[in-house]
């Protein structure tokens, strides 16, 4: 009678590619260029081409917006609650010798969240969903030749997740509210990269970032009618979740002295995510297992940097990000869709060793109308899934992102 029907936890939309203002300004087409300390994230092999010691500190400010219209055939509109996310980034690199360079960073590779009103039509599917991962990568780069380098690295990650949703108390009056919270204080991943500059104008890079397996431990709490407290799930929970591996191949080409073009192909191994499962320690409560059936996906990215002079350059980028989830599994906890991103930015090297970079990215999701949803948005009993009403409707999403980084280098020109 009572059960929790939580929904998706993360998706393509939870991968963040905003690690540094410059990569963001270039639409994320950066793997083949990596000419600042954010190479620690994008492609560690690029560190061999950075001289001296470099620091880069900044943050992105992300404002996502989503509306849902439905449930079909109705077209009533519900808007997601506005939220702003501020994932920071910090990278440092140091060239040890002619061959070796090391780099360290802090960034948020997966994150974001969605929040809907507690009385909205999809409240039994999602009210609040939030995931934050922090990753601290450490990378060593080795220059095999003057124009060819490779890198390997490891990363330590920690994460926390919150899922809250309403739960119908049918046939009893009112809704209960379920809150799941968990964290994993240590998860590990690894990465590798390669960078080759065959000509003065051309650079080619590739990088690999591994899957990271998180084992969340946490608690479930439920606010509901006192009389139903024995039925409402609570207590310790555990959940496993893997963030997908990424393979990214990029190309940079200096068309003329003032103009550098770049392109990236990013492959994301989302097929690792086939179900969302939450286990309750207390056997009185049914464990949750919901099929997600994600598919591997990709993004294609293009960027351009125009150097006005030694101090200023302008950035522009565009990308297409293919949704990893089939429409029937799309849930309001993560309203995924194919996305187009348009970015612009300015890089200002104010002093010889200090600069500021700012960029803006607008992400527009293609309108997604789901007609064969498998998400059930009303209370139902096990076995009655076929006749239960499904969450069909139309999602529209867009996001505004602003990123600001400062960078500082020293020992410039020492060699």
């Amino acid at each position, binding site marked *: *009678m009572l059960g929790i029907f939580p929904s998706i936890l993360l998706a393509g939309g939870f991968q963040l590619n905003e690690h540094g203002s410059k990569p963001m300004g270039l639409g994320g087409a950066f793997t083949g260029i990596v000419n600042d300390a954010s190479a620690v994230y994008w492609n560690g092999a690029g560190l061999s081409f950075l001289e001296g010691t470099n620091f880069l500190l900044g943050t992105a400010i992300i404002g996502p*917006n989503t*509306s849902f*219209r439905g449930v079909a*055939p*109705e*077209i009533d509109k519900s808007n997601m609650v506005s939220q702003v996310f501020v994932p920071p980034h910090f990278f440092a690199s140091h060239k040890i010798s002619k061959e070796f360079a090391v780099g360290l960073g802090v960034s948020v590779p997966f994150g974001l969240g969605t929040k809907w009103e507690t009385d909205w039509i999809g409240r039994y599917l999602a009210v609040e969903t939030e995931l934050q991962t922090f990753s601290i990568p450490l990378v060593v780069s080795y220059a095999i030749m003057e124009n060819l380098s490779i890198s390997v690295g490891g990363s330590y990650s920690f994460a926390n997740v919150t899922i809250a949703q309403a739960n*119908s*108390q*049918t*046939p*009893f*009056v*009112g809704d209960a509210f379920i809150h799941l919270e968990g964290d994993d204080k240590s998860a590990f991943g690894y990465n590798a990269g390669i960078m080759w500059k065959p000509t003065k104008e051309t650079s080619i890079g590739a990088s690999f970032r591994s899957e990271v397996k998180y084992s969340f431990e946490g608690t479930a709490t439920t606010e509901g*009618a*006192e*009389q*139903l407290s*024995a*039925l409402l799930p609570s207590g310790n929970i555990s959940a496993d979740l893997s963030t997908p591996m990424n393979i990214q191949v990029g190309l940079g080409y200096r068309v003329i002295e003032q103009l550098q073009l770049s392109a990236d192909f990013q492959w994301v191994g989302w097929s690792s995510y086939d179900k969302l499962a939450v286990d309750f320690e207390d056997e009185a409560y049914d464990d949750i297992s919901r099929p997600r059936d994600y598919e591997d996906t990709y993004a294609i990215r293009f960027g351009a940097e125009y150097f*006005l002079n030694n101090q*200023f350059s*302008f950035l522009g980028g565009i990308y297409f990000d293919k949704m990893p989830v089939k429409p029937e599994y799309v849930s309001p906890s993560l309203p995924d869709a194919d996305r187009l991103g*348009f970015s*612009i*930015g*300015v890089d*200002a090297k104010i002093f010889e060793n200090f600069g500021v970079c*700012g960029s*803006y990215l*607008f992400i*527009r999701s293609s*309108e997604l*109308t789901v007609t064969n949803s498998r998400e*059930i948005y*009303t*209370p*139902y*009993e096990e076995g*009655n*899934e076929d*006749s*239960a*009403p499904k969450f069909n409707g*139309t999602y*529209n999403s*867009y996001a*505004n992102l*602003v990123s600001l980084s400062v960078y500082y280098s020293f020992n410039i020109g020492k060699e």
Partner: protein
Amino acid sequence: MRKILFACLIFTGLVLFFSACEDYNDLTAPAPIDFGSADFSRFVSIGNSLTMAEQSQSVFESSQKYSFGKLIADLVSTTYEQAIFSDPGTGDRLEIKSLDLANGVVEIVENPEQGSPTNLNYPAPYNNLGIKGAFLKDVLNARDATTCYTNNLPPPLNIYNTPNPLFDAVLRGLGTQMELAMAQQPTLVTLWIGNNDILAFATRGGLFPITDPQTSFAPDYNTILNNLENVGAQVVMANIPDVKNIPFFKTVGPGIGLKLQENQIPGMVYQTTSGIGQATVNDLCSLNVLVLLTGSSAASLIGDVTGAYYSLNGIPVPPNVNTAYPFGLAAENPWPNNLILDPTEMSIVDQIVAAYNGIINAEATARNFAVVDIHELLNQIGEPGGIVVDGITFSSEFILGNTYSLDGVHPTTQGYGLVANAFIETINEKYGASIPLINVASLPGSLILEGVSMGKYGIPNIPHGALDNVIF
């Protein structure tokens, strides 16, 4: 420096440009509903508590806004005013105080609070003329609390002991249900009446007069339909359900059966109008006799030799009863007549219901009006396993069956959704309309949690007297 400013300006401009991009394609609004030849422009309901949306023994706003008439009116976007009573409504609302489903224990209490009418000053007759406690003849005759049928019966049959105030609240001195319906020049009327004319007999264990099908029911029903036909209204009638499908009659008996079986007692002994009856464990469990929900608290006293049933409830011990014998197990101390519907009474109920429904069907056929077969709907729900609609299983199980509220008689909000859908299906068929059905799963749960002890054996613990006034 100028260049920096220039760059900032362009940047700001572009940010604003993209931020404004909140466009999307227009979605096609759902096609307007095809009403066929049905005309909802002046929509009126005549009925009893089922039309008024009584639940858990009270009529209250959070139920009334999902009355079957209101659900239909909202679907077809027509005016539908009702006599609304703020929560907890007209009084004695049953609420769940505690619930232990693992052990099958539920405790139900009556809410002592009352709500108040919120729109007594509505300047026209209500569209929903349903009145809790209305009998068929009340539609034509009752003008107020004092002229309703039950107020003019001799004690103890005058059900409310006081005049039924809901006649005043709905009619407001403006006329009878019939007159107020006619005054609205209705285009479409739902008519679901006559339930009380037999169920008052059934819910009181056979101790209540029955409206005679031929001499009373048929002529009154005929008059009502003549009047409605004369004003040109389309009339959609609903028939009378089988009492055996209602938790009020199905819950306690099987519980007592289990209890007796566990204690190796072959059966119980009960008082009938003409003498003493006996029910075996099998009779109780197979519903060959129907122990009423009003007997739930007495069920725990079966076998008692202290006369507790009478002393606890302040009931004088009847002259033929010797309380030194085990309560409900001996002919000297039988289970009270008003708490059981014996096989003779059950067959009377069956015959009367069949006669009423025969009259309703014949009238409908003669006038080309539609009949909603609620009788069949509740039969299906009463089958083992019930029916599944929109993911929810509806059965006649008390509390967990999703269909019936805590009084065991009136539907839940989702149950009223099923009733509304039955009306819509009939209207669609009769008038060539294609009104979409209501998604009943999207209607809220409505069993109020406050404060039933569903004792062991699945017998709820309802305070003695709590359901004495149960009536449609």
